[in-house]
């Protein structure tokens, strides 16, 4: 029954991919004339760095492959290790690789944020919970039938192969403009009426977009974070009877302190 369901799923997925793939491969989201319309941030044509994402530089390629290997290796470490601490450490390695890849995409601010928030804050949270749990898994991978493994593996290999072939052919909508991908964006300067060029992906450029068009989303996320903090505390709090039990010992020293104060 499970195998039949799996086969059916794979067939439906393959059919969907076959139907969608040709359109995706030739997808050109905006026609050539639309490129000339100025986007939200006014982009300068001149680029002091040259174009960096489409680079024929050997050193850039070496760095890319090294950090891509770190990213994927760390991710594989996460899903294969039985020891939870090892998995978390693999995750940190993966995040460092991702951060470097962001830097290659000229997202310097996001790169730093990735390092601070993910490798710093979230991973520390994970380590805390791992220490609380402190139980190695008996059997890391759920057992399934051999046929399921074979079919699932073949389907994954086929789908990933198709995906890679498709993604490798992704081209900028208009190669003539995209090869000079913007190294700097022009924003209003500190003095009213002046314009200022800041680096692509810098704090100022991202902040101008975040607090301009993205202001509502920013405020919504701040409320979401507040709700998440309150919810996390409410969920992780001990149950009601535990709470009463835990409250008892705290009452006693307070009474003692009060009587001690009177005496």
């Amino acid at each position, binding site marked *: 029954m499970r195998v039949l369901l799996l086969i059916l799923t794979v067939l439906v997925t393959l059919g969907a991919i076959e139907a969608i793939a040709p359109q995706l491969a030739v997808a050109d989201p905006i026609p050539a004339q639309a490129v000339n319309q100025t986007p939200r941030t006014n982009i300068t044509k001149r680029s002091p760095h040259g174009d960096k994402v*489409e680079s024929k530089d050997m050193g850039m390629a070496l760095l890319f492959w090294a950090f891509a290997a770190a990213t994927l290796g760390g991710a594989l470490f996460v899903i294969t290790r039985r020891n939870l601490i090892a998995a978390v450490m693999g995750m940190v390695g993966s995040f460092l690789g991702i951060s470097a*890849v962001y830097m290659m*995409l*000229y997202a310097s601010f996001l790169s730093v944020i990735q390092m601070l928030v993910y490798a710093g804050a*979230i991973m520390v949270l994970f380590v805390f919970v791992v220490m609380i749990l402190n139980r190695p898994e008996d059997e890391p991978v759920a057992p399934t039938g051999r046929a399921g493994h074979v079919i699932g593996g073949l389907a994954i290999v086929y789908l990933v192969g198709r*995906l890679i072939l498709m*993604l490798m052919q992704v081209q900028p909508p208009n190669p003539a403009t995209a090869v000079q991908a913007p190294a700097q964006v022009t924003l209003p300067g500190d003095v009213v009426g002046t314009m200022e060029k800041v680096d692509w992906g810098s704090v100022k450029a991202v902040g101008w977009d975040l607090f301009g068009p993205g202001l509502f989303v920013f405020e919504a996320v701040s409320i979401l974070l507040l709700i998440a903090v309150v919810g996390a505390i409410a969920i992780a709090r001990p149950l009601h009877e535990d709470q009463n039990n835990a409250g008892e010992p705290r009452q006693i020293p307070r009474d003692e302190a009060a009587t001690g104060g009177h005496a």
Partner: protein
Amino acid sequence: MSDLLINVGYGHFLVLAALLFLIGTVGVLIRRNALIILMSVELMLNAANMTLLTFSRMWGDLSGHTFALIVIAVAAAEAAVGLAIVVAVFRGRRNVDVDRLTTLRH
């Protein structure tokens, strides 16, 4: 072939993000520890972020960076709530094996 190795373009970043997402998906599907599943979800969110930044660079539109920042904030909130649920489940059952959480199945 060597051209593909040396000439790193947008497609390479997209393929890297797709493989990262795939690893995250496989982790969610095959692992039974709730913590590892949460970490795999984080990997998938990072893959989506990398795709956002690649297309942001490709289109020359900075709003992809804003969106990635929002995704990071949402991922932090998700990790906090998810870990709180894991702790609550562990407190009641002394394990976090998702295959054994069958109370709601019937």
